[in-house]
């Protein structure tokens, strides 16, 4: 009786409900992708012959796991954070050497029928380890040395993951900078990093001329609104001009130089196709060479990103305002969007439920993120707060990049949509992230170190 009380006490039920709603939406979307009229609905669940059946099983496993996490003492997480982090790193390195290759990346460890992707789990461990480090009594995160150590903890798994050829997953670790910013990292680093990333992506999507004009207009607007400040602070004006100059140079000189002079044609083609833009070289010889290369690779589906993004935009765009309705989307039901159950699951929502449905769906995520921040800010323990921000950052990064790539705003890097995309590892990871947070939050009156 007492035991029962301790489990449910302090649990943030709104989070649990949001979690449940999202997992059910995910299941319904995967079902919509696979189900064909007249087929039995339950049979594939029992026989595990279809993805939605497997995902349903995973959801059950995750529910069990969630209960286990809720039963665990929160001190367990602080105590084992560093150990788990170390284990995660070892497993990642192990995967690099003894892992089996799946779609060109060596990030899977196969034990009998069980497949494990350590870099997925590493996210949770890194998040815990970072929280552990920052919450140490002796850590003063306003110092550069501490910040450097924090960055190192975050980026070590990223480096290993890049070595495993899982660039998408590696990028997720950069989201920890958001946490570190909250804990005292100078905003300059965050702004500069994010700006450069945005500028690089923009340079791929738009022409240098357009961007040059856009930057100039933006700079002019900023100068216009800040003109009263310049009298007191002349440096600010020069700063704005400098930022404008750097952005223009990156977009109109550095990027074209990198792309046209340093990279090989096939690399260029790949970079452009990441944003769903066809790359047509001006030099006819080069064009012929590229055509030859492409025709050689045709049918191997080696790099279909361009096709994926076009089909995904068609799917989402064709939804219109009200959407085509559940099980009515032609693009997603007849396999026009590749990887539509994993990375491009958002297409099903966009096509089936249109603009209105997409906005409602996005607001679910927004509520989740804001709820996590509220939870983070009510923690008495730094460990819990940092961990909560870590969870928010990982969710935010996944949601942003995944949806942006389906609507052509971000390059196609294969990362799943949290709790929606098909895939056991991913569902397991996000469940762990969220329920550890709920567990920690339940003990928010405790000071955990």
């Amino acid at each position, binding site marked *: 009786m007492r035991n029962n009380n301790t489990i449910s006490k302090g649990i943030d039920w709104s989070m649990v409900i949001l979690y449940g709603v999202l997992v059910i939406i995910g299941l319904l979307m995967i079902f919509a992708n696979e189900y*064909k009229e007249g087929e039995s609905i339950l049979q594939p669940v029992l026989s595990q012959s279809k993805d939605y059946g497997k995902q349903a099983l995973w959801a059950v496993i995750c529910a069990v796991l969630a209960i286990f996490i809720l039963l665990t003492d929160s001190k367990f997480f602080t105590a084992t954070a560093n150990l788990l982090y170390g284990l995660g790193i070892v497993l990642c390195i192990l995967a690099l050497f003894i892992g089996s290759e799946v779609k060109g990346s060596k990030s899977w460890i196969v034990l009998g029928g069980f497949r494990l992707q350590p870099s997925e789990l590493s996210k949770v461990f890194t998040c815990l380890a970072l929280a552990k480090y920052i919450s140490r009594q002796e850590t003063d995160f306003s110092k550069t040395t501490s910040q450097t150590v924090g960055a190192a903890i975050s980026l070590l798994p990223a480096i290993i993951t890049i070595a495993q050829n899982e660039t998408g997953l590696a990028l997720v670790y950069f989201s920890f900078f958001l946490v570190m910013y*909250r804990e005292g990292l100078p905003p300059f680093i965050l702004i500069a990093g994010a700006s450069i990333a945005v500028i690089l992506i923009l340079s791929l999507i738009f022409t240098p001329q357009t961007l040059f004009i856009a930057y100039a207009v933006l700079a002019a607007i900023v100068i216009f609104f800040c003109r009263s400040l310049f009298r007191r602070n002349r440096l600010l004006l020069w700063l704005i001009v400098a930022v404008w100059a750097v952005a223009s140079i990156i977009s109109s000189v550095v990027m074209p130089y990198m792309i046209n002079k340093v990279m090989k044609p096939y690399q260029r083609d790949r970079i452009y196709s990441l944003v769903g833009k066809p790359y047509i070289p001006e030099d006819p010889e080069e064009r012929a060479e590229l055509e030859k290369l492409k025709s050689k690779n045709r049918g191997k589906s080696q790099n279909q990103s361009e096709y994926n993004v076009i089909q995904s935009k068609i799917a989402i*765009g064709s*939804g219109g*305002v009200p959407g085509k309705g559940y099980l009515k989307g032609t693009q997603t039901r007849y396999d026009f969007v590749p990887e539509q159950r994993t990375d491009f699951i958002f297409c099903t929502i966009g096509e089936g439920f249109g603009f209105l449905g997409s906005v409602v769906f996005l607001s679910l995520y927004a509520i989740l993120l804001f709820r996590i921040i509220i939870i983070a800010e009510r923690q008495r323990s730094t460990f819990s707060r940092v961990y909560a921000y870590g969870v928010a950052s990982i969710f935010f990064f996944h949601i942003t990049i995944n949806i942006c790539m389906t609507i052509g705003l971000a390059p196609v890097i294969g990362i799943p949509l949290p709790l929606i995309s098909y895939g056991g590892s991913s569902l397991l990871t996000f469940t762990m992230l969220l329920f550890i947070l709920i567990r920690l939050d339940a003990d928010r009156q405790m000071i955990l170190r």
Partner: protein
Amino acid sequence: MPEFNQSRKRVIQLIFIVVFLVIIGQLFNLQVIQSKYAKLAENNAIAKKIVYPSRGIIYDRKGRAILDNVARFDLVVTPFQVKGIDTAALCNILKIDTAEFHKRLITSIVKNGRYRPSVFEPLVSPQLQAQLDENMYKFPGFDLSERPVRSYPYKAAAHILGYVAEVDTAIIRKSNYFYQMGDYVGRSGLESSYEKVLMGTRGIRHLIKDNKNRIQGSFENGAYDTTAEAGRNLYSSVDIELQQLAEKLLANKIGGLVAINPKTGGILAMASGPTYDPNDLAGAAFRKNWGRLALDTARPLYNRAIKGQYPPGSTFKPLGALIALDQGLINPKYGYGCGGAYYSCGRGVKCTHAGHGHAATLRLALANSCNAYFCQIFRMAIDNPAFANASEGYLKWKKYMNAFGMGVKLGVDLPSEDRASVPDTSRYNRDFGGARRWNSCNIVTLGIGQDRMTATPLQMANVMSIIANRGYYYTPHLVDSIQDETANDTTLSKYRTRHTVTNISDEDYQAVLDGMHDVTVYGTASFLRIPGIQYCAKTGTAQNPHGKDHSIFTSFAPKDNPQIAVAVVVENAGFGATWAGPIATLLMEKYLNDTISAGESMNNFERVSKADLIPAAIKHWYYVKDSIKQAKLAIKEVSVDTVLEQPAVVPKKTTFDPEAEPLRKDSGEVIPEKTFMILPQENRNKPDSSKDEKQ
């Protein structure tokens, strides 16, 4: 310490909000602003399949179907399903070699992809179809798909019916892209002029396809589908038996004939020689025969009944008489002393008769076809004192002519009818160098249907119906009614209005009628009789620049209450009464008595139908063509004879598409081509016997 840096919470929240707003902005752009994606998705997933209705059927006046639809089958292949089949067995059935098999398979993959069916062998013959049906289970990926094809059980009326063939780019453009590549459309004859009625309404099926173009079922359970409506049937005025007889009589002759029911304007038979079996241009036979027919120097595809322009010769004379009578220039008793020629204009116009009094009255002049008499009355019409000069007189005369349908398009329901020619004064002004530099003498032979006057057999027959009806006619037409015709359907209304030709009095008509009757009693056609029927006729022997005179005969029967008017032209055959005459009387006899009586009529039938009146020049062309074929054949035979051990092997010739099959080695040998038998003269333009058995 939660207070520490707590303000940064707001910054992070702001970042979340901004990023979500950017995402929503792009979603708004994609889903609300840009409308192209819905169309793109539809193009991706929805295949619009046109369902072709069966074409309407054309019936004759007794309700017999002169053309019909039969189901033929295309052998189609879906390449990705073709796995481990007995290629040799299939090749054996289709009588092709494996190289050809692979070539076709690769061609269909190139054309339609691996996942969609494409035609492997179009329109397989019924025997082949039966053979394939039995063995179909052995050939996964192959299928027989039905396609209706025209068939013509009577093997007649090719020129009337026309043919159906695939559309070309010009037709597609003209139809405003209503037709698509591969559609079939009526290309001539009734098939063309009643295309809209016969084709029916096409249906559209919306089908869902997946990313590999495989059909997944119907879209929204067919909510947007439209059903195909079969084409409407046509009920024509043609008498198919009469038509067959007409074609039989015109066999091996060049010319045209038209038989009209004067009471309705309905065309009973319309033939053009040489003709062809319409089955030759139906379905798979089209490809085989069209080129041959189109290149034939005798032009079997040319409908001489509506396009052939012939000087009407003496058959014009009743018309000349009517014009002179109506203008009050002569009366039926008017006579002309002809001494064997018309000398009033210097150079004499010869007359076949010289006897005194053979043109003493209009009746006699018509019966004896006196050239001098009609030259005289023509001149009287041109030099009519009521008009200031010859030009005006001529214009009045031309007006009469046009009213009789001469020199104008009648508007028959067949495409590309010719208006032939009744020249305008400007033509003569140009010929003679000025309006006042020609007079009635210069154009006197117009009076006997020569000079620049030409008419089509259809116009001649129409003139006969006008005379038979004593002054009115219905526009000649082939289609009497259309199935399910609605009250506001105006397609046929122009064939149901009665046209009255000026106000020529009944007496005038009676006078001409009497003369034309006399033609058959003691005149130029007196030896041509229809048992038990009095008829009126006019023979014509038209001079022409191409050789022997054209044999022309215009007539209607019975004399009182006429029911059929016939005009026959046989090119370069001689006297009108010799060839065209019996053809016309036999047709009238068949139509009125429903049979051809034994005896004289039968003898005529035997004589005419067996006669070969093809001009020597055309025969020579056939001869040259056949000789070239025979020479080629002879060369092949010789080579086979000399090297008996080896079959005829043509050295080094690529027999396959090297691009399609890069791995195949060229053996340098080919299977010798099949040699074609030269068909004997009477079998030309007839379908091969194997096809006859099918029907």
